């Protein structure tokens, strides 16, 4: 624990230092992101002399700015973002910077280390949230290293706001970052109807069922709701998404991994005078400039008689060569039963 703390302190010190450094070098070429700076100090990596001379070169510095190889680990801003996954689930991610933790450590002293990290999820449906007027809240405890979380709200059709903060030993909760407010959709038809566009319940049930492609019957009660959910969530009707990636046409599944296919092809090749006329089974073929030719055939079962005839350009000479090929295919399919004896 102590070691971890030490590393963290060092990290935040480095971050601070590099932030400061950054300020000083704005506009200069040697600007480094805090993260790369951090890595260098931690891993003992040093800028080589060559690099140094590169960076100080006054003319060609424009092309020297290194292309970052990976995305930043952090963006140096305290932030928590809340997103809606579906009527029941939210997703949140957050970032808290070193300086913020330093300030908290300063303020809270030992309490900081005894505090628990948590997400406080507020139900703020239909209110302007001021930090203390939520309908209710619930807490999700997270570890220090965690930076994102899926939250089961079990509350479709509500508005939510989340704080990431510290729960102190005396029960006080200190908000470090507060999220945006989001609304989860309802997971069924609205109970609010519009007087001007009123519709009898039974008729709406029919329209609702039809809207989900459940035919024209009038489904009622829970079974009906279940069918709707099934239709919606089975994935059967979901978009295949990117059209080149997924087919709505089902791929036949291989029963076992082992498989074997066998085919035969026949290659017929030869050569003659480049200006001769050659026919294979009566069809004229094209010769290469040197008079050679190659033909490739899928060879089905049975007998193939392949007369190949060459006629000289002056039509004085003619030769025919006829290979006769036959293919017969037999196959066995043996699946051994094996027992799991030890």
């Amino acid at each position, binding site marked *: 624990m102590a070691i971890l703390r030490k590393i963290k302190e060092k990290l935040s010190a480095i971050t601070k230092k590099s932030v400061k450094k950054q300020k000083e070098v704005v506009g200069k070429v040697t600007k480094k992101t805090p993260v790369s700076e951090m890595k260098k100090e931690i891993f003992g990596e040093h800028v080589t002399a060559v690099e140094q001379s590169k960076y100080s070169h006054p003319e060609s510095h424009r092309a020297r*700015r290194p292309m*970052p190889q990976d995305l930043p680990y952090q963006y140096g801003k305290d932030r928590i*973002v809340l997103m809606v996954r579906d009527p029941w689930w939210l997703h949140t991610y957050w970032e808290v910077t070193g300086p913020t933790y330093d300030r908290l450590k300063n303020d809270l002293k030992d309490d900081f280390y005894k505090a628990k990290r948590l997400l406080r999820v507020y139900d703020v449906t239909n209110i302007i949230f001021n930090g203390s007027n939520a309908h209710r809240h619930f807490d999700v405890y997270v570890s220090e290293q965690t930076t994102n979380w899926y939250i089961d709200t079990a509350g479709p059709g509500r508005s939510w706001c989340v704080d990431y903060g510290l729960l102190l030993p005396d029960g006080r909760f200190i908000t470090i970052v507060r999220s945006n407010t989001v609304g989860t959709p309802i997971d069924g038809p609205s109970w609010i109807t519009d007087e001007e566009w009123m*519709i009898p319940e039974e008729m709406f049930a029919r329209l609702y069922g039809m809207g989900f492609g459940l035919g024209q019957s009038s489904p009622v009660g829970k079974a009906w709701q279940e069918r709707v959910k099934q239709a919606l969530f089975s994935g059967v*009707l979901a*978009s295949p998404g990117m059209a080149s990636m997924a087919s709505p046409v089902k791929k036949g599944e291989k029963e076992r991994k082992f498989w074997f296919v066998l085919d035969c*092809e026949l290659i017929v090749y030869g050569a003659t005078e480049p200006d001769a006329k050659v026919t294979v089974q009566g069809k004229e073929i094209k010769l290469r400039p040197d008079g050679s030719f190659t033909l*490739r055939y899928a060879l089905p079962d049975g007998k193939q008689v392949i007369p190949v005839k060459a006629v000289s350009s002056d039509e004085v000479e003619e030769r025919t060569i006829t290979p006769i090929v036959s293919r017969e295919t037999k196959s066995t399919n043996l699946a051994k039963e094996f027992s799991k004896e030890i």
Partner: protein
Amino acid sequence: MNKGYLCLVLHGHLPFVRHPEHENFLEEDWLYEAITETYLPLISVFEKLVDDGIDFRITMTLSPTLISMLSDPLLQERYLKHINTLIELSHKEIERTNWQPNFQSLAIMYLNLFCKARETFEKYHRNLVSAFKRFQDLGKLEIITCGATHGYFPLMDVCKESVRAQVKVAANHYESVFGRKPRGIWLPECGYYPGHDEILKEAGIRFFFSDSHGILHGTPRPKYGVFAPVYCKGTGVACFGRDLESSKQVWSSIEGYPGDYNYREFYRDIGFDLEYDYIRPYIHPDGVRINTGIKYYRITGPGNIKEPYNPEWARERAAQHAGNFMFNRQKQIEHLNGFMQKKPILVSPYDAELFGHWWYEGPMWLDYVIRKISCDQDEVRLITPSEYLEENPRNQVIIPSMSSWGWKGYSEMWLQGSNDWVYRHLHAASDRMTELVKSFSNADGLLRRALNQALRELLLAQSSDWAFILGTGTHISYAVRRTKDHLLRFNRLYDDIKSNFIDEEWLSDIEYKDNVFPGIDYRVHQ
């Protein structure tokens, strides 16, 4: 006199997969395959319908990235090379299958198909957008727009500036291509979050689509379910809901038409089936076997044993399925007409690539559906959303519910353990972009170029396709790379701009690589 309407929507989108830095790039094949198998066949269907005097209405998304790729000279050149290679291969196939008449006739079918593709491609001067525009100008097609790079809006709500940029860049791009503003939009993945209609309204967009539950779970209750559009409260932007019954007949992987045993089997391609040395010049230069588009089998049955494809049987089945589809719409509309005070509209949206690419007979089926509806009955009429709104200006006002048409109906496909890490970076980049726009409200010269490029990189990183691929778990490395590359380029531009140190050489390089939206104005991100 018709009793109701059918609105067929084809959503055409592919992510921006242009890689000038490599001679051959695997992912560019997504575009080439879609051109050969979907866009060109659809164009042929529309052409024949027009020639035969058949009146029809189709609504079609052409996503801005798709339009950009279809009109890109480099990709056009490469497509031509691609199709020529396929023609060469089909010639070889005709020879190779000389003793297999079943297969040889199919090889000839492919040769004809590829030659026709090349001919149509050349006829429209290699730019298929002009072909679609022609049908729009004839009043048969309503082309709608989409998010600029198909960003998934509900997960962008925390930085609405980015939603606005996705919409405005798309609308401006549309205007530059079609000479008028888009009236409608296909929200990427059909993802709606309440309040985003405000942004659509700002861009002059009058309607969008949602999945069924977007309307059915809206507040207050929609009087006509999904069978009439609603106006969003406060903005009056119209929302049309998907009819799941007609969707199911085409989409469903269990009972949908495309799974019929007589239809062509997608998963048996000679790129995987034939002898390696022979097929080697037609697969990826790295030697990885890929689909060539030449497929000889029909689905046959649930097992692995496949019979040769029979085009006649498939055609017959497509005609039957078209008849069935029409019959069901007639019944549906008759039934609805009985208790609605206005003519119902059935909205049936599909990914365009379902037709032809996945479902080989799809364009043929569509052709039959349109002809039958036009000639064989009076109850159902094809309509576009714009036309419907003109005929029915009075509609109920509700707040649609957040929804998408993805797996489980909400955002889980794009927000799960495998892809949630991207949002931290995407949102940070959005914030940074907003900050840049605030700091430089009127930049010019090199700075302006850098700011515009920063927005391009941000948009490209936002494409929902990357998160989707990460979610499916296949081809992940490309999606990770694309997400990271665009974000890294964005971050470096941000640093460069902030420190007043723009590396022009490098900027030119990424402007060349990621050349989407040449007319972009970074100030739309606010």
